[in-house]
Each structure stands twice: as C-alpha cells, then as structure tokens.
C-alpha cells in the first residue's frame, strides 16, 4: 500500500467562512450557538453558518463552492483527471425540501446536484451512515489511493440548515438546552451545527499523512456508543497504522456533551490508553455537524495545530469521568487519533501523522 496524504482542507462553519476566519474566531474565544425555534414553542441551540443568502439551494451552492476552492481545488479540477468525489451527509438537502425549493425524491439526486454545481465529471459516491459518514468516506478514499487505483480523492462533508434533524434529536431528548459542555459536570446534551468541509486526499506527499483507521458498526446500542467497541476501533486503527497507544500524542474525541455517550467513549479509550494522551473536543466550537463532523473536525484541528490556536472551554469538568480536555495545545503531537461515534451504532477512528514532527518529541508532552 502506498502512503496517503491530506493535501488540502476547506471548512465553512459557524466559526467563519473559511479556516482562517475560524481560527481568528477560536482565538477570540469562539462563538455562541444561535437559537432555532421549533413548532410547539421550543427553541434549541444551533451552530449556524452566517450567510446573507436566504435561498437554501443558492446558499448551499455558494458555501460548497467556497469550501472546495479553499481546499485548493478549482471547479475544473476534476475535468481532466480521474478524481472521485465522495460526498458525506446525513441530512442531504432536507432543508431545501422544507423550504419548498426541492422535493423529496431520489436521495442520490442531491449528490448529483452538488457534482453539477462543481462541474465534477468523475465518479461520485454518497456516504450517508449518519455521524460517521465523512470518516467512512475518508477510509474508502484512503483505500482507493493506497491500492493505487486513483491518485487523489476529494471528500466533501455537507450538513446544512434544516429543522428535520434538530426536531428529530429534540424528540429523542438528545439536545442540550444551551452551549454543549463535552466532558462537563453539567453536560446535558449535544448541539447540532452546520458545516461544509473538504478534505483533498492524494498520494503526493504533504504534511499530514493518513496512517489508517477502523470502522465498526455495533448494533447493541443503536443510538449510542459501546465502550468495548470504542476500544476495538482504537486498537484496530493502531494495528493497521503499525503504532502502539504510547505513540498517540493527541486524541480528538467525539465528546459532544452527551451525559451517557461522553462517559462511554472515555471508558472505551481508557481500555486502550493506559496513560491517556491529551484530549480535545471541537463540539463546543462548531457543534455536532453530523455527517460532515469527521472531516470538519479534522480540518479545524489540523489548522489549530499548524497555527498554534487552541479551543478553550469555560465550564467545570466532570471529575467522575477522570479526564479533562486539554486547555493548552499539546507539544508537537506526531500521531493523532480522531474518532466519531454515531447514531446507528457507528464507531470510526482514524490516525494521522504530522510529518513535521520528529519521532520522540511528542508522547503526551505538554507545555508547562
């Protein structure tokens, strides 16, 4: 298998129109979620993207185009090369259907629309396995490039404004009443967010290398994580990457602020990591962006690491969990494990290597 690298990223989120804006916003303390009113008089936090366009389709088209361009891709990029496009989304264009600008039809139609907006002439696949969609797409892309079938793949995570997802999560009593508090003592649920995230994977060397990963669906809890399976995805990801737990210098958790799931995730991690590496969660920064979350959070995290910006929290952690999120950027973590745990029993972990870091520098080192 040949090496696979992460060549470029794009992210439009509640933090800003691109990664540069997101970092500025994070450095200034981040943003508060907006509130979305639902029928029945309830309102819920939602990390919405600020954008002047009101028409759902025109807004989606502009946001997607901007994210793709930020990742260093031009719309004509795929015209003369075989670059498969892997779209990952949970809610697809349900927001357009709600607003009356589209109608319920073939689920793949949205993926085709996106490909047309981008003039994408190569193959298009749609991953729609709820929250783990974009990491599943990343694993498939890595497999295609690694085996020499293609030179590059673009993964595009899209999760845009709709009431369908928020009302569904509200009906299941999974939403926080305010800003989510991952690993917090008073965590009371998750907050959803919008994102368009792009990851350009290629066989051409770049700073970030995709080492490997693991995807396991475990049906024992269709709406939550299973600690043993969290441990298994970490073990498998380490094994295929040729690494041991002590090589990991940073873990980007799912940690969305769920009372039960945060605890299950840490219980699973503790089975693998005798000494827990520094932990980070981005859910209180951009919300849970569902199908886009894996790629969106990796895009934001790598940008944070490259630019010395670190997300801050201002709440009390749950001492019973035994772990806290790192308040400072870890010193040069060479290997980073990122997981997403989802709806539908989905558990995915991937491991990235920062080629700028030499072996031996990281291993849980922190600035004093």
């Amino acid at each position, binding site marked *: *298998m*040949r090496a696979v690298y992460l060549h470029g990223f794009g992210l439009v989120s509640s933090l800003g129109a691109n990664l540069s804006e997101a970092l500025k916003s994070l450095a200034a303390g981040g943003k508060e979620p907006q509130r979305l009113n*639902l*029928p*029945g008089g*309830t309102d819920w936090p939602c990390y919405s993207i600020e954008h002047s366009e009101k028409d759902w389709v025109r807004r989606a088209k502009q946001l997607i185009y901007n994210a793709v361009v930020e990742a260093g891709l031009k719309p004509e990029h795929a015209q003369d090369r075989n670059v498969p496009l892997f779209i990952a989304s*949970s809610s697809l264009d*349900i927001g357009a*259907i*709600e607003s009356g600008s589209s109608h*319920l*039809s*073939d*689920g*793949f139609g949205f*993926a*085709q629309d996106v490909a047309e907006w981008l003039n994408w002439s190569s*193959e*298009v*696949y*749609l*991953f*729609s*396995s*709820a929250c*783990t969609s974009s990491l*599943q797409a990343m*694993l*498939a892309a890595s*497999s*295609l490039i690694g*085996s*020499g*079938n293609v*030179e590059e793949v673009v993964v595009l995570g899209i999760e845009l404004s709709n*009431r*369908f997802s928020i*009302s*569904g999560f*509200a*009906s*299941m009593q999974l939403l926080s009443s305010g800003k989510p508090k991952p690993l917090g003592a008073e965590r009371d649920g998750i907050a959803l967010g919008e994102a368009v995230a792009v990851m350009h994977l290629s*066989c051409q060397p770049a700073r970030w290398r995709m080492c490997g990963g*693991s*995807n*396991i*669906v*475990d*049906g*024992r*809890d*269709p*709406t939550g994580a299973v600690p043993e*399976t969290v441990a*298994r995805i970490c073990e498998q990801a380490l094994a295929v990457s040729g690494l041991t737990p002590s090589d990991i210098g940073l873990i980007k958790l799912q940690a969305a602020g769920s009372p039960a799931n945060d605890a299950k995730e840490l219980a699973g991690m503790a089975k693998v990591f005798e000494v827990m590496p520094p932990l980070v969660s981005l859910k209180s920064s951009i919300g849970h962006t569902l199908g886009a979350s894996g790629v969106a959070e990796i895009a934001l995290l790598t940008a944070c690491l490259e630019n010395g910006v670190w997300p801050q929290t201002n709440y009390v952690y749950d001492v019973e969990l035994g772990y806290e999120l790192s308040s400072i950027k870890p010193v040069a973590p060479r290997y980073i494990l990122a997981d997403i745990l*989802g*709806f*539908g*029993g*989905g558990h995915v972990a991937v491991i990235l290597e920062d080629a700028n870091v030499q072996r031996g520098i990281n291993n849980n080192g922190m600035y004093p």
Partner: protein
Amino acid sequence: MKPEIKENLVWKITGRVGHVDGKPPDNWRDLLATRLGQRPRRIGMLAELALYGALDCLDAADEAILPKDAVLRVCSMHGASAVISQVLEQNQTELPMPFSFLQSQSSQLLPALATALKWQGDAAIVMARDRMSLALLAARQAGPNGMLLGWVEESPCSSQWLRLARCAIRPENFTAAKSFGEMISSDVGYWRLGEAGIEISLAQDCKTN
C-alpha cells in the same frame, strides 16, 4: 502508477438473493418473522427489507453468521422516503415521534443488520448511481472474509443481496463485466478486480485449488 492487483483477489459468489428483479415474495414479512422468531419491532420497512434479504442471502451462502472481517455495504437510493414524508409533515406542527425520526434515518438499518447477523464490523450506507461502481468500491475495501452487498428500496419493494467470499482459484476466462445485471447473473460464479473494474467468470469456468 498501475493499480495493485493481487493474484488472490478473487471472490466467489456464495449467496445471491433477488438477483432477477429484487422483488421479494408477497409474504416476505411473514417469512422474516419466522426467520427471526418474532416480528421485528420499531425498525421500519427499509430495515425490515434489508434484514429479509441479508438473512436470506446468508442462508443461501450456507453461513450462520457473517464473518467479523467481512465488509457490509448497503445502497438505498430512496431511503425511508415514506417515513421521511411523515416526519416532514409532523414537523409542521410538533416534534416528530422519536421512533419515526429513527426510522427516517437509513443508517438505522445498519445496527438492525448487525444485530440480526450477530456481527460487528465494517458497515456503511453508500450510494452510487452506477451499481457497478458501488460493487467496485466495496471490492476494493474488502478483506479476506469478503463482502455482503445489498441494494434495498421500499417502493417498488426490492431487496437484492450478494455474498462474496474470497477464494483461492486459478483465474481462467475472466472478462470485464459490462453491466450490473451481468455481474449478478446466476451464471456468474466469480468476481475479480481488474485494472478497469470488476471482471467476471462463469461458475463452470473456474477450478478451485
């Protein structure tokens, strides 16, 4: 760089369900209830259809459970559209019913399948307009224990499944598949990864080692 083609990347089609038109028998729900020992609860029609086809396919492959390293890929172009419509309507005036929302999510068929197949592993909902492309992507990700592939739609009711197991075989008379129908034809016994895509061989044209 040329694609990495391993000599042993050959799969035998060991189970095949709904390969003619995908339409299950009229009493498929009764058959599923008999197979499970009870009627499935709260999972929705799409997941029930997936269960029916997947379990039938494993039976056809003479496997009691899906091996843990097999790859499971399911495609549903329309998803649970009836329930999605229902939830959209409920959303006009109130919060949806929790189980309606769950059933509207195609991904919920994955835990249902995992539970019924007594399996935990690499499963995903992936869609591609061209069914051959989807099969090709799955084949490129499949490991030693092969794959279980399903195409499921509520309307018209359809549940097509293939179980492919890796096998050691002398590759003879493989030709590029021209259509998905040809790939799943009952005459075809084997798939192989070629440079341009899936190659197929008739069942009688290969000799197992």
